[in-house]
């Protein structure tokens, strides 16, 4: 056993020295994630925040068809910063072309219905699939509803009735979401995916170079002619890739922490404690082993380095699957989920980001399941390295 460990350690040192000499690859493997992800997340955050602000505060210019039928409504809207303008010739086309986000149509029957005390129709025109139009449409709808409410209350009072009779039930809301959970909404979708992706393929540069690359450069056969056990050789390569991957993850998380402390309000939600960073790394370590072992197996099976690299494309999509499934079909957290790769990491990272406690049983189930899968893939990679074809082909 100690001999195996010595061989493994020897391979680890050589692979790290080898990639250490390749500055550009090392830079890509170690620093790309830590540099790009925080910029990406903070940038997105900044833009969302800015859009929310401007959409809430600025004066909206809304084309109104038939403004002359309801001058009081138009005046009311103007007090809320919603200014009526003349509609363009072809309103539908203007909405389709996104030159107009929202428009209002007041039919000619408005005044007659109004005076008769019937509900007078006002139509809000927008394209509900245009995310850009969401905020202005909500604002206009709220403004019109407030106007209706106000007039309704006045009408009841004029008839000597307490407006409260219209509210037999008052609905209050107590939101039990923690502050952290509320702030982590955007983060909930993206951060787990980015972290799982970085851990899943974080060791890929090194492992493809050390397996498929080694074979292509014809240094594998001499290596296998040494007394070192093949299991120890392949384990050393996997371990070296995991060291690179782990370092990259740690740097990414620290980069998030540092940029969060420099950022504004919303960026603060990226600020996680060092304890949380430690727990995230514990969640991601099995993922790193799974990804690296799987890639070792695939790259050792590939005929060339090019073929090995082509696997990255579909491997990058795998971690997205649970994110999409959860987006379309949110499910309750149950214990079995912590045995499913990608889904379990996603759920656990969410819990950590939301500062929720994680039960010891969950940890046990998760670590046993994910480390078993990693061990199975590791055995597969070792088995592949023991095959005769590996050394000879290529």
């Amino acid at each position, binding site marked *: 056993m100690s*001999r195996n460990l010595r061989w493994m350690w020897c391979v680890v040192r050589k692979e790290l020295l080898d990639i250490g*000499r390749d500055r550009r690859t090392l830079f890509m493997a170690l620093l790309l994630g830590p540099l790009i992800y925080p910029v990406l997340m903070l940038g997105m955050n900044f833009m969302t925040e800015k859009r929310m602000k401007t959409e809430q505060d600025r004066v909206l210019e809304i084309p109104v068809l038939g403004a002359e039928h309801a001058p009081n409504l138009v005046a009311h809207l103007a007090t809320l910063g919603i200014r009526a303008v003349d509609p363009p010739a072809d309103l539908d086309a203007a909405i389709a072309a996104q030159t107009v986000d929202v428009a209002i149509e007041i039919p000619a029957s408005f005044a007659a219905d109004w005076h008769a005390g019937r509900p007078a129709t006002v139509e809000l025109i927008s394209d509900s699939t245009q995310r850009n139009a969401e905020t202005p449409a909500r604002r206009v709808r709220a403004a019109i509803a407030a106007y209706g409410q106000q007039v309704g209350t006045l009408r009841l009072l004029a008839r000597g009735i307490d407006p409260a009779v219209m509210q037999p039930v008052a609905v209050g809301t107590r939101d039990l979401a923690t502050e952290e959970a509320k702030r982590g909404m955007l983060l909930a979708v993206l951060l787990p995916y980015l972290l799982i992706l970085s851990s899943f393929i974080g060791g890929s540069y090194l492992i493809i170079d050390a397996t498929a690359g080694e074979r292509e450069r*014809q240094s594998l056969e*001499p*290596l296998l*002619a040494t*007394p070192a056990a093949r299991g120890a050789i392949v384990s050393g390569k996997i371990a070296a890739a995991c060291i690179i991957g782990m370092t990259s993850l740690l740097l990414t998380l620290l980069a998030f922490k540092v940029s969060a402390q420099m950022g504004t309000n919303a960026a603060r939600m990226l600020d996680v404690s060092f304890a949380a960073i430690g727990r995230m790394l514990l969640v991601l370590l099995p993922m790193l082993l799974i990804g690296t072992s799987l890639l070792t197996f695939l790259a050792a099976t590939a005929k060339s380095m090019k073929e090995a690299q082509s696997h990255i494309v579909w491997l990058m999509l795998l971690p997205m699957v649970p994110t999409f499934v959860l987006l379309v079909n949110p499910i309750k957290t149950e214990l079995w989920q912590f045995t499913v790769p990608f889904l379990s990491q996603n759920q656990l990272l969410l819990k950590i980001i939301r500062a929720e406690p994680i039960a010891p049983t969950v940890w046990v189930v998760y670590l046993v399941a994910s480390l078993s899968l990693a061990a199975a893939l590791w055995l597969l990679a070792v088995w592949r390295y023991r095959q005769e074809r590996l050394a000879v082909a290529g």
Partner: protein
Amino acid sequence: MITAQQLHKAFKTKTGTVQAVDGVDFTAEDGRITGLLGPNGAGKTTTLRMLYTLMRPDSGRVVVDGIDAAQDPAAVRRVLGVLPDARGVYKRLTARENIRYFGELHGLTRAEINERTRVLSGQLDMDEILDRQTEGFSQGQRTKTAIARALVHDPRNVILDEPTNGLDVMTTRAMREFLFKLRDDGRCVIFSSHIMQEVAALCDRIVIIAKGRVVADGTADELRERFGNQNLEDAFVRAIGSEEGLLA
């Protein structure tokens, strides 16, 4: 000492089964250079790969210094120094680091590795390139690095697959001297080549292989005598039964 007993090896390809080695049988003694001579595709590399346990023979036995390769391949690899057909060196490491890596895999101490590196570097005349990264090395410099790496653990038995392939005249001569040195140390040296003159100049014993079989086996004189030719080249052609591969 290396003994190959009735080695057979077949490969499955898309077009069917290829019998690469079909009953190769020979013994390489200590203190002798044994040359495997044969045209390209005769099965030399496959035979050597079975000797250094990269491949398992379909049938037959390989015994190195009394150790059965099928029983304990790791022990066989410990007493062998191998320069395979594929001799890639790690480009981003220096020649010294390449040698050290293999020394560590052989379980040598740092002091042993340094001493062996010094000795081999002197013998192979590679002091000047020792601390350069091997990226950009000439073919000869790469081969020297690969040989030093293969012999770092001072093995009793040395297997070299076409060691002079792609080397210029001067380097080839130096390589020859190096092989004589290995022999005079009392080591068992096996090397393969498709160049008849080289085998004739170097080997104490010649094993001619064609189409996966040993077609002749003996000293250069014995072979000349056996085929009734004064010229070894003619004897070689008679032995393999064609001129195929001679010019390759």
